[in-house]
């Protein structure tokens, strides 16, 4: 009798367990089948933001996604970073623009994180917030004289010739000197050297900003030094850009044969990397080739290796740079990583110049309420999931907050790097959704786009929609046609906003 009762109770227990799992399954089914939208906000409309948006919308049919950007124009560095004479690299905006045809997507230009809307407000109105706002500041050298006139960051110069509305006034003085020094040997450094030494006539049919073209026509720059801390084996540029700079008309490229000597560690490095191998081969070719006699070379480009800047010195004008003091370096292996670092040798030399560009790296800016690793200049994260407590133990994931792009990885890589970066972050979001890591946060009703519109209305902020951007786009293209340029960029905040709000 007693056993019967036990058996009945066990059966009841099984029954109840079965019923509850059935219920869970039922509800999960309901949730995914329901049209309850998942509201996502991506902060930053560059390649990282757009690739993330594309992948989120594709992977999740219930997602309603907004991209916000502080500029009235989307596409980030594709518009303001890629050099004007690299139009094919900008073709990717066609793919990004197709996103605008998706009803579940909206673009909000002229909306700035921090001023127009705060991070906590965004987290309140959206289920998922992905930060993709990149790196809008610069690494600094921290050496004496860095504040002298005539010293610019690469980012400022690139923004200037690309017509970024924030850099119209930071115009470099190109008429007062014949020598410019570029610190760094990455592709951005090569872009700067190329824009400075290129015949301005070659830039006339590109989308370079008009004020930059006018200034370059009157430029007196004839010599550019590309200075790197390490050797040709470690040069950060890539083959395509190097090949391009070699084919510049009227520009003689100089490399010292002595710099090309390879150590056994250098040989190891070259064996491991195809990119570095091909770059080193190109640099060796330059060093061994004779200057062409039949073409007059009015301009010179010098690759300077194994030198790091120690200080900047003024001459007569105490506020303007006229010399860079460089310390010779040698390479030393850094632990077991195989990576070689530059170490100062104590020997110094000076280079006369009137213009300096620091192309040593961009840096991200922190935002109120956001964990930030100041040393690396990134938001601490695990495959895109933001970690609280600056990544130190004990750390937790901040639910619903993710990062992608330069803010996540640091400011390096090409446009396509963001493709894989976005895939990883979207993968983390998908995993979190499926495993319920975002409960109960995700099941709350959030206003999403409507909430953002409400906030912007309250603050009287006139945002720029994608259709508004298309008005700017059309005007730029039409103005460009008059000058045989792909577009004539509009470079002032006022004019951009005026056209967008027509």
């Amino acid at each position, binding site marked *: 009798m007693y056993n019967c009762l036990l058996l009945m109770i066990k059966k009841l227990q099984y029954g109840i367990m079965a019923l509850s799992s059935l219920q869970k399954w039922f509800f999960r089914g309901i949730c995914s089948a329901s049209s309850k939208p998942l509201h996502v906000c991506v902060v930053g409309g560059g390649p990282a933001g757009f690739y993330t948006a594309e992948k989120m919308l594709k992977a999740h049919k219930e997602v309603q996604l907004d991209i916000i950007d502080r500029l009235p124009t989307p596409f980030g560095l594709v518009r303001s970073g890629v050099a004007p004479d*690299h139009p094919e690299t900008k073709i990717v905006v066609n793919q990004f623009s197709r996103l605008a045809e998706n009803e579940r997507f909206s673009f909000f230009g002229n909306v700035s994180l921090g001023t127009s809307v705060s991070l906590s407000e965004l987290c309140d109105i959206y289920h998922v917030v992905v930060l993709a706002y990149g790196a809008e500041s610069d690494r600094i050298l921290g050496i004496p004289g860095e504040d002298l006139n005539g010293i610019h960051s690469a980012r400022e110069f690139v923004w200037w010739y690309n017509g970024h509305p924030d850099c119209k006034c930071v115009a470099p003085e190109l008429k007062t000197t014949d020598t410019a020094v570029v610190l760094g040997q990455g592709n951005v450094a090569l872009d700067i050297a190329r824009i400075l030494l290129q015949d301005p006539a070659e830039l006339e049919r590109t989308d370079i900003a008009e004020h930059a073209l006018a200034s370059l026509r009157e430029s007196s720059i004839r010599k550019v030094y590309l200075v790197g801390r390490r050797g040709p084996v470690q040069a950060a540029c890539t083959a395509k850009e190097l090949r391009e700079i070699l084919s510049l008309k009227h520009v003689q490229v100089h490399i010292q044969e002595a710099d090309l000597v390879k150590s056994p560690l250098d040989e190891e490095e070259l064996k491991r990397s195809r990119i570095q191998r091909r770059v080193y081969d190109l640099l060796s070719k330059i060093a061994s080739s004779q200057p062409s006699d039949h073409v007059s070379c009015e301009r010179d480009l010098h690759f300077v290796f194994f030198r790091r800047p120690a200080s900047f010195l003024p001459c007569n004008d105490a506020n303007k740079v006229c010399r860079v003091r460089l310390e010779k370096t040698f390479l030393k292996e850094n632990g077991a990583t195989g990576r070689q670092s530059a170490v100062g040798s104590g020997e110094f030399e000076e280079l006369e110049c009137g213009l300096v560009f620091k192309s040593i790296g961009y840096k991200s800016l922190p935002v109120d309420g956001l964990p930030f690793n100041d040393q690396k200049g990134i938001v601490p994260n695990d495959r895109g999931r933001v970690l609280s407590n600056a990544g130190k133990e004990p750390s937790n994931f901040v639910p619903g907050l993710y990062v992608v792009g330069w803010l996540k990885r640091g400011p390096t890589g090409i446009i396509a790097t963001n493709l894989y970066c976005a895939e990883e972050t979207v993968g983390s979001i998908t995993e979190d959704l499926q495993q319920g890591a975002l409960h109960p946060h995700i099941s709350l009703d959030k206003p999403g786009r409507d909430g953002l519109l409400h906030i912007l209305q309250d603050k009287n902020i006139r945002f720029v929609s994608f259709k508004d951007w298309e008005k700017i786009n059309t005007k730029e293209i039409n103005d460009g046609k008059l000058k045989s340029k792909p577009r004539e960029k509009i470079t002032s905040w006022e004019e951009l906003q005026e056209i967008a709000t027509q």
Partner: protein
Amino acid sequence: MELKRMMEKGLLSSFSRSLHMLSKNIQGSLNLHLQPLGIFGRREYLSKAYFDGDKGWTSSGSIQGAALKSGKAELQTTGQRFSMLMESLKRRHFSTTGNGADDQKNEKEKISVTFVDKDGNEKEIKVPIGMSMLEAAHENDIDLEGACEGSLACSTCHVIVMDVDHYNKLEDPTDEENDMLDLAFGLTETSRLGCQVIAKPELDGIRLALPAATRNFAVDGYVPKPH
């Protein structure tokens, strides 16, 4: 008959496209900057000779060299497409065999290509001779990225040729293609850019793998050691 007509149309358009690009490349190599005709639409097969139907000549710095190189490739492609077109026309107007044999011959003007995605899923498609793998992928809804739309300015259409024999039947990549392959993720010994692999009869049965997005991609575009 419909299929034949469509095939011919496809051949004709791809042939005339080739001819157009070829003439532009010849102009480029002779350093002539003629006005673009702008006949073709957006999906034009752009070569590295910097001729764009909408924008005209864009970068004149390295036009000569690039134009000459891709001109040579264009010449080959144009030649192939011309002979394919002639074959198709010959068969259409002079063939005395029945429909069955015609259909068989139609099949030969397309090759079979199998795409394998990073999860191992396979999709076999038919690609007309002369079409690039990138174009073919997009026409068949295969997830192959093409950020620069075939203008040799990115590496997103990177594919891995799974059979070494087929890989060896391809022409060597140009410097421009190699420069872009440098930056491709998951690069291997038989990697190529999908926009530069053009369908030809010898490639029938070719299998192309889409590279797996590596989790630990390094930030500086560093490519893992090829294996």
